[in-house]
């Protein structure tokens, strides 16, 4: 994907230099996107980007350039917070959602506790109804030849489809009860994010300050 000698890449055009065939920028900064390199150059600088790209495998470079371009664009739009502003907004949104989930799950757990009792009430009431039936509801009915004083009232009050709905809905013991005590995502550690005026080093991948 290297540019031909006739059309220098956006980086070489910006830097006003000849675009060599082996230009490291050419595959990632096409001439039709001049702003992309201009932003990256302004925020990171050409030599820093070159060093960064040279430390990566070729198949990683495109993603790296695109993420650098995104960061540069964010920093130019918001010179104080840059990307970190967006991270804060997303964190806040995630926290809100997690609180809502927690509240919804605790409300759901109340229903699931009541559900068992509710079905028992319906069943008991239905049994009472059946007993009542046997004690002789003296209505005219039956087509058979039995002519005694008591005729059973067979009318079905609950249509079949409603009977099926009465079956217990096990809202799913398909959620982990521990989710009720929601944690912030296990993947993110809050210490990653800048604390006000107290950014301390940690033992993650670092570089030698000397």
């Amino acid at each position, binding site marked *: 994907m290297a540019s031909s000698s006739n059309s220098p890449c956006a980086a070489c055009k910006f830097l006003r230099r000849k675009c060599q065939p082996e230009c490291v920028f050419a595959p990632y900064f096409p001439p039709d996107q001049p702003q992309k390199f201009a932003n990256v150059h302004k925020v990171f600088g050409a030599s820093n980007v070159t060093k960064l790209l040279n430390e990566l495998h070729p198949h990683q470079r495109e993603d790296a350039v695109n*993420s650098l371009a995104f960061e540069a664009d964010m920093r130019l739009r918001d010179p104080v917070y840059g990307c970190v502003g967006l991270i804060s907004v997303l964190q806040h949104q995630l926290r809100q959602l997690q609180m809502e989930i927690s509240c919804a799950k605790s409300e759901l757990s109340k*229903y699931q506790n009541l559900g068992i009792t509710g079905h028992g009430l*319906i069943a008991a009431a239905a049994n009472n109804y059946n007993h*009542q039936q046997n004690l002789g509801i003296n209505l005219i*009915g039956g087509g058979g030849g039995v002519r005694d004083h008591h005729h059973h009232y067979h009318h079905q009050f609950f249509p079949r489809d409603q009977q099926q709905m009465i079956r217990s809905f096990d809202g799913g013991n398909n959620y982990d009860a521990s989710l009720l005590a929601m944690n912030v995502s296990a993947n*993110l550690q809050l210490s990653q994010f800048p*604390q006000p005026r107290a950014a301390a080093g940690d033992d993650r991948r670092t570089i030698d*300050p000397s």
Partner: protein
Amino acid sequence: MSHSTRCAACKSLRKRCPEDCVLAPYFPPTDPQRYACVHKIFGASNTTNMLQQLPMHLRAEAADCISFESRSRVEDPVYGSVGIITQLQEQIITAQSELVKTKGEIAFHNAQQQLQQQQMQQLQMIHAIAQEVEDQPLWLSSSQQDPFPNVNQQLLEDYNYSNTFCGFEF
């Protein structure tokens, strides 16, 4: 005039730290790692330019954010802070689906509860009717209380054993 102790930036650059050093307030010598990341990713002059363009009261926040971004990029050279953004977006999508699903379950339970209440009321009504009917005089099946003694008994018996009573079918 210069600082008695050089800031991390000037120490790294091996130069004198002037009194008005732009970076000195935000990159103390006690945290060399913080400046080292910034230097590697953004460079000294870019960092100085970025901070100089801002009013004084915003520079501390900006320095912290720049430090965070450079640290993220050192730890993840391919995606840097953008990796964190992507991760957060995925978690938000997952959380949104979970919330919708949970609210759906709540709505189902609400509907079920209302249905159960209706059914309870219907059962109570049936019991009340059944009790009332049982208490009524059994004149239709008992010859002692026949209010129509002159009616053709055969006709009455046929009527008693018909399949309908007051329009209700059995």
